């Protein structure tokens, strides 16, 4: 595995879950929970005669971003597409709850210093949602994660980081959206229904799942950035993600709350406006929506580098 200093300039997109976990926090600060040597793997895959991983395809641990303990959850798409079962689902819930434990201890031991030492949860998603081999347990784990997110509200910021090969789909698509802040690179994708299922439901003329450009325009980071579902669009290096996480860790809870897209009745109203727009407009393509928000030449946007895109793009105005 690469050293921290090498990870800094490495591609986030190409990085393994463990590389991301180590590189997203400050140098030399990462401690992994349930290290692969402890062999906490899925008992259900064993029963089905399937290969297991000793970390069940998820790296969890704690590191530091400045003085802020950062609880990291990092999914490995190369193991069964990063899908969630009983063990890695429990790791995810466990890590979020530990952040709440840390928050409580900091408040008790260092009253007055909470803001400066406030913990956060960082989730590097790479998953299609529920792992079918243990689907029922995976489903129940998703509900526990949403429940734990609500416990974190106004106490511990939760940050979604999306920029790996598999993207973030299925149930984890709404988990990512339910976080406070979303950080993506250009390659990042978030959605609920995968492209193949949409094609199956609507027909190839309406949605061609083999059209990679169309898929990116629908679920990719640039679209998410325009409609304000992505708060930070960064270059594809682990160092760039690390830097922006450091900034987020230092923000006030009020600033963080403002970056949310769902989680209150006011935000529901705001999203209903967007749904109304889409219902009225019946866009054939996301580009119709980009144009509506003031991008005169939407077809040029996918071709731009991240830096050029950020300079020229017009985004949905927030109410």
């Amino acid at each position, binding site marked *: 595995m690469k050293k921290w200093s090498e990870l800094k300039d490495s591609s986030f997109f190409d990085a393994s879950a463990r590389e991301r976990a180590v590189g997203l926090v400050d140098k030399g600060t990462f401690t992994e*929970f*349930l290290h692969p040597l402890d062999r*906490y793997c899925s008992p*259900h895959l064993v*029963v*089905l*005669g399937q290969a297991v991983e000793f970390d069940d395809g998820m790296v969890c641990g*704690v590191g*530091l971003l400045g*003085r802020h*303990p950062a609880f990291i959850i990092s999914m490995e798409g190369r193991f069964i597409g990063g899908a969630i079962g*009983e*063990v890695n689902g*429990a*790791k995810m819930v466990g890590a979020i709850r530990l952040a709440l*434990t*840390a928050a409580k201890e*900091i408040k008790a*031991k260092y009253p007055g210093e909470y803001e400066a*030492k406030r913990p956060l949860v960082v989730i590097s998603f790479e998953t299609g949602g*529920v792992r*079918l*081999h*243990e*689907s*029922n*347990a995976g*489903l*129940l*784990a998703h*509900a526990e994660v*949403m*429940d734990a997110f609500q*416990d974190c*509200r106004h106490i511990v910021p939760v940050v979604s980081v999306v920029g790996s090969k598999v993207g973030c789909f*299925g149930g984890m*698509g*709404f988990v990512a*959206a*339910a976080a406070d802040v979303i950080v993506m690179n250009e390659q990042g994708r978030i959605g*609920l*229904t995968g492209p193949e299922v949409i094609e199956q439901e*609507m027909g190839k003329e309406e949605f061609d799942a083999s059209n990679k450009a169309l898929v990116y325009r*629908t679920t990719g980071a640039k*679209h998410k950035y325009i409609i304000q579902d992505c708060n930070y669009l960064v270059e594809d290096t682990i160092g760039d993600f690390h830097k922006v996480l450091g900034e987020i860790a230092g923000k006030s809870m009020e600033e963080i709350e403002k970056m949310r*897209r*769902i*989680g209150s*009745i006011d935000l*529901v109203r705001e*999203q*209903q406006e967007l*749904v109304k*727009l*889409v*219902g009225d407009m*019946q*866009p054939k393509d*996301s580009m119709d*929506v980009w144009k509506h928000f003031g991008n005169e030449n939407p077809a040029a946007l996918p071709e731009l580098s991240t830096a050029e895109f950020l300079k020229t793009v017009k985004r949905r105005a927030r109410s």
Partner: protein
Amino acid sequence: MDDFENENTMIGRGREAVEQIVDPGSFKENVINDYNFEADCAPGSVVGTAVLDGKPVTIIASDAEAFNDRFPVVFGGVIGLEEGYKMATAVYKTIEADKDKPLAEKRAIILIVDTPGNGPGKLEEIAGMNKATGSYQLALAEARKTGHPIVACVIGRAISGAFLCHGLQADHIVALSQEFGTMIHVMPLTSISRITKLNIEILEELAKENPVFAAGVGFFYKLGGVQEIIEKIEDMRSVIIKHVNEVARLKAEGKGELLGPWGRGILGNERGGRVDRVKVMDKMKEEFAAVAGKYIGA
């Protein structure tokens, strides 16, 4: 396909179920306290206020007979964008209605569950269906933690993400037994077999012992995902009332951790269906405790 020929099934009969459960003639659609919903928005969802055992409750269901003209993938009980946000609004309006009331007077929310999925379309992905379902789930979690008892009753289909959307954030979940064609699963075993490339006969054999991947109400019961199975349709009302009261009592006693998704984890461990979950979390706790000082004191 016996499920669909079952005369006793409640699949597609969400509105009837509401009438069977609440006090006779008490359901008022599109009204929560002093808030009125636009009647023509989100046709796939049914929200409103009813009286249950003499007390006001919020009802949330889906309408399997409705079609949403603007979002053509929304029919047959599918929860689409408009539906998800309308359901979320119903929950927030419920919280608002009782915000100054003591815990004991926070009204219950009853979820009638019969839905095959969230809107699987292009418009849905462009606007972000993930936010609509996520929004509704966060609203339910907030209501639950604010003290509203939430009971979900699965009367038909509780499939995958749709069950997460509409059901799995409740305090307690009850379900009509398998006999009524009730379906709780992520995917039927045949699809799991196709995607995982595992032999269907082997899967069927293994499913008898291991509830973790097989489709069915009984398996979810063993995993703690369903609190109680209802054997007769006539019993839906009394079972729901019983669970509302039990949930309210636990909240009054400050035992909220026994409820909701976390409570179902505890139940799944007790019933022997999900025993690794707790081992994983206990070990993580222990490992963090050993290094906590370094991070908390940074």
